[in-house]
């Protein structure tokens, strides 16, 4: 069988379910000024089996995760998504069960500043040196974040080594890449629509190439990033030795294209883009947040070089 860049029927069905859940829960701008993680939405993801994807018990693999994350990214949906998938690849089934069921949250990152630490029950330190199940020495100090997520500063004590974490990090990077590419695609879409609707100097601003060319450029890189994320997910599922490097490439590409798309969306929308209730701000903040996970970008760059034998 030759190349096939489309999701399977089952994966498309999963994607539709996630999209439907996000629509029912009203994801979007409302997410930022309500509770950080609406229970209906998070338990809805658990009910769909999304939070268990990639685990031995949950079934599904990286491509299913990518399919779900593309939908979540298109909605700018919140939550410790990347951390959950990384945890699923590292923890024992019994440890993962409450997380997969949406009853506990996982904080995965590099201490001291940990994503979702102020609301999490499970802590995993993930670095280029490996992964460890941890517990905070004291209750994490809550840190207010720009995207409204309850991060925290914590001193972590390592409880158990969870291996080198390479595969889990790759899964997290592919998941983040899928989300980022899709969030960026959403921003390019709404910015393009706005450029068609907004009239200044008696013409839609989309007719100015200063507006349309950057959006077109963003569209190219976003499209590439989305396919690279799928390629990386496929490589992980196929246990391809190049998978960690592919995931790192996809993640770096997605960060670059999403950051550029966020910037261009702000530039196109002008002041509206800076309003909390507007269509851009909450997505651009989530893009910034996801661009930091699951590992620092420097680690991804190193991984790409390793893939090249450097």
């Amino acid at each position: 069988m030759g190349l096939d860049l489309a999701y399977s029927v089952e994966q498309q069905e999963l994607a539709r379910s996630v999209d439907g859940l996000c629509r029912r829960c009203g994801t979007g701008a409302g997410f930022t000024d309500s509770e950080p993680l609406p229970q209906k939405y998070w338990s809805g993801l658990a009910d769909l089996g999304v939070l268990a994807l990639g685990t031995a018990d949950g079934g599904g693999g990286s491509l299913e995760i990518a399919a779900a994350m593309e939908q979540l990214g298109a909605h700018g949906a919140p939550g410790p998504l990347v951390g959950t998938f990384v945890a699923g690849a590292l923890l024992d089934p019994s440890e993962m069960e409450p997380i997969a069921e949406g009853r506990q949250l996982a904080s995965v990152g590099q201490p001291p500043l940990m994503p979702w630490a102020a609301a999490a029950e499970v802590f995993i330190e993930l670095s280029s040196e490996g992964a460890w199940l941890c517990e905070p020495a004291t209750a994490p100090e809550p840190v207010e974040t720009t995207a409204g997520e309850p991060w925290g500063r914590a001193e972590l004590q390592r409880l158990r080594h969870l291996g080198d974490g390479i595969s889990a990090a790759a899964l997290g990077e592919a998941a983040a890449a899928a989300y980022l590419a899709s969030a960026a695609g959403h921003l390019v879409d709404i910015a393009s629509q706005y450029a068609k609707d907004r009239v200044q100097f008696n013409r839609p601003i989309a007719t100015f190439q200063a507006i349309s060319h950057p959006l077109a450029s963003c569209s190219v890189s976003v499209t590439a990033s989305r396919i690279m994320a799928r390629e990386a997910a496929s490589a992980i599922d196929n246990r391809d030795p190049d998978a960690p490097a592919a995931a790192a490439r996809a993640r770096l590409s997605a960060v670059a294209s999403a950051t550029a798309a966020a910037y261009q969306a702000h530039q196109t929308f002008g002041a509206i883009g800076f309003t909390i209730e507007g269509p851009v701000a909450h997505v651009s903040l989530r893009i910034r947040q996801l661009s930091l996970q699951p590992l620092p970008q420097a680690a991804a760059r190193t991984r790409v070089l390793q893939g090249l034998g450097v």
Partner: protein
Amino acid sequence: MEFDWAEEDVSYRSELQAFLQDELPGRWEGATAVLGSAENAEYSRRFAGLLADEGWLTPHWPAEWGGTGATPWMLAVLGEELWSRGEPRGPQYMNVNWIGPSIMAHGTAEQCERYLPPIAAGDVIWCQGFSEPEAGTDLASLRTRAVPDGDHYVVNGSKIWTSYGDIADHCYLLVRTDPGAERHHGISVLLMDMDSPGLEVRPIPGMVGEHSFTELFLSDVRVPAANRLGPENEGWAVVREALSFERVGAPRWARAAYVLDETLQWARELGRVIEESTVEAVGRAKAACEAARMLCYRVIDERARDLPPSPHANVARVAMVQAERLTADACAALQGNEIMRYGSSSDLQTRKSLAAGVAAGTYEVQLNLVARRHLGLPKS
């Protein structure tokens, strides 16, 4: 040609720095905050009063209105020192740099007497009523209408993205007084009191720090005809001249350079490992700040020689936006996850850099002006 500061400028800077050292001990906690935040507005009012007492609020104004004969280079020193400390003048910046000078140039004796002393004393906040929902970059398509009625104008319409609208005492308001006139004609400037009946101010929560925009709704607001600044229907020329007073605008590069230095210092103090790509990002940002500084100096040099405004100001503005953005990239690379901490220097710099290409004229419009005026390229 001389790239060293004159002795008098060096002394001016030293005296100013000593004053600021006393008044803003250590790192002023608002130094990296976003200009114009509501919580800083009251501080700014007090601080502007102190500056006024020392002759540093309006040193470039004529002596008649409290000036001290400062040269354009001294004014540049003042701008650099204050912006690099986060611009503790806050909203007063606008008053002293273009609203006051505009009133001086076009105001009646009564208007000057009424409006200039409070500005010179640092005791008043102005906002600008320019943009409208359908008139942003295309400001000349503004529709807020002012109809003469006896010795008043009756104003109806709305303004949007007005900074300080909720705390301002007065508004420098652009209105259309001749709806039949083409675009740039038929516009007038009114100096409106913000407690005028019929004026409603609504905040618009924004993501650029605590800085909220406001929207102004004007329903039969009566503004005395005596509050019109300059001739009726010729407001466009008045406001264009007003904005050219400061020519290159705020020295944003100075603030970006300060944030870059502070963030680098933060990384050093924490013993953070600074990887090679981050070093490159910091180098690029530093170079961009220096480029913007030099391009701003070229504009100040023109002003010091009494030359008319030129496209050099557009070139400098473009360079400042680039410096803001590259500084944001460098700070984000230095701070890593800390960029998500609300109020961290990389967080604030990123949000500021996003606004830099939109506020006070978009980046694209500045590039158009550089293409046309600086390179002589034709208009599309």
